[in-house]
């Protein structure tokens, strides 16, 4: 019965209903079906929301990013990228994916607000602009999605290489509770192969999209 809440979420997302309202309704329904009363439900929702406020701290960076944009960040990034020969949007995304993996494997966190919006995405757009001149909306959207995904791929699949990462600690802790003693370093080592595979897959996808964009502009005859 508790699974009806999940159904609400799935249907709500598919029908593109208002996300916040869908999430709240799913929560209330799940709680009621799980035998909680309304104050208990509100209390769980509210208390978690308060303790998770740290998730919103990236908002403090937004004024700085906004200021930098006003003072020409994107224009300068585009200008610099255009001076380097042979750069494409896909290559920038792959390069960032590689750096993101190396950094997180050493325990260093980058991110969408800190890196992708102010630096990587404008550089990728700039690279495409230097190849094809004016960029259409479809291409622009593809490059945005590609830049955002590079961050996620690198972050997810290389983070467990860092021994003190929370994922490694979760694995060790959970297994300990189940009566298995495992070494964190061994878990980190076992996480290396998938990080390499993820890098290769990301590289291939970015290359395919580069090709797709090139074909699109060759058809238009808009290549410089």
């Amino acid at each position, binding site marked *: 019965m*508790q699974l009806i*809440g*999940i159904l609400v*979420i799935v249907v709500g997302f598919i029908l*593109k209903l*208002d*996300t*916040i*309202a869908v*999430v*709240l309704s799913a929560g209330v329904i799940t709680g009621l079906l799980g035998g909680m009363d309304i104050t208990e*439900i509100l*209390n*769980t*929702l*509210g*208390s*978690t*929301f*308060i303790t998770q*406020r*740290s*998730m*919103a*701290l990236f*908002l*403090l*960076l937004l004024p700085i990013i*906004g*200021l*930098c944009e*006003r*003072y*020409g*960040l*994107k*224009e*300068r990034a585009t200008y610099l990228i255009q001076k380097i020969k042979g750069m494409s949007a896909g290559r920038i995304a792959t390069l960032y994916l590689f750096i993101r993996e190396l950094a997180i494997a050493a325990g260093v*966190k980058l991110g969408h607000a800190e890196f*992708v*919006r102010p630096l990587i995405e404008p550089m990728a757009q700039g690279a495409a602009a230097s190849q094809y001149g004016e960029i259409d909306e479809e291409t622009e*959207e593809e490059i945005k*999605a590609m830049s*955002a*995904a590079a961050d*996620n*791929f690198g972050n*997810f*699949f290389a983070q467990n290489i860092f021994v003190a990462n*929370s*994922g490694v600690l*979760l*694995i060790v802790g959970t*297994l300990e509770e189940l009566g298995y003693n*495992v070494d964190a370093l061994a*878990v980190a080592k*076992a*996480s290396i*192969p998938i990080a390499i595979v993820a890098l290769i897959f990301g590289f291939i*996808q970015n290359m395919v999209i580069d090709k797709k964009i090139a074909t699109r502009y060759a058809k238009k005859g808009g290549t410089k």
Partner: protein
Amino acid sequence: MSNSVLLEIFYVCVGLLMYLVAFNIIKDANSPARIGTTLFWGILGTIFTFGSLLPGTLVGALLIVIGILTATKQVKMGKVNAPQPSFSMEQAKALGNKVFIPSLTIAALVILIAKFTSYSGTVAIGIAAFVTVIITMLLTKANGKAVAEESNRMLQAVGVTAILPQLLAALGSLFTAAGVGDVIANNISQFIPEGNVLIGVAAYCIGMALFTMIMGNAFAAFSVITVGIGVPFVFMQGGNIVVCSALALTAGYCGTLLTPMAANFNMLPVALLNIKNKNAVIKHQAFVAIPLLIVHIALMYFLGF
């Protein structure tokens, strides 16, 4: 100052930014959905500023009010002063590469503070924001009004998505409290035949991905699915526990790439980069996530046994 005191100060600052947006909306007579949008940002500002003093039940009730506002389309973006392209072009020439100093300072400070002090990564973001906003103002000679205008513009652009990660975390804890995880693990394990290693491995990986998609969080999935599927169908059949459990968690991350429930990874970038199609990032990631999930099954089968 201790970690928790600093965090509380930063939460108040986020709250003040939200009040700033509310103030901008209410003083603009032409803004669409003026009352609803002011209420939305005002309530959020209050939750962030006074969160630690407010009882959870009241905050829960305020969240329901916010839900009613967004469901009835009472929250809309107001007028913002977007930067003039000609102005940005001129400044880019004048500042040159100095315009990168703030972004690089943020990154460097976050890394250094988290590495070399006892402050947590989240506190480091707050400290970096403070130091860098001052550096940026000195560098660009922008005044307080420009900072306020940019805060207003950027916050409104991110809009309601800003609180989605937190809201989904709250939903996750409700799911856990209501016992959703156990129900799912029991249901999946009923369908797995015993004694087949490949089916066991596939069920562990796919179970992790699916459950992560539902919860939006691979951590929540890991303990539930490892107990329900991993131990009986993989570990008990002789799978290497270290290799299989490490791959199980990243198999869960394949699910993270595919779900709007993981709002901070998939929905927030859509808002941050102003992508028109809400699902563009997930759609793009699917082309890697699904093949990668198959690779997980293969790796667990060949490396784990």
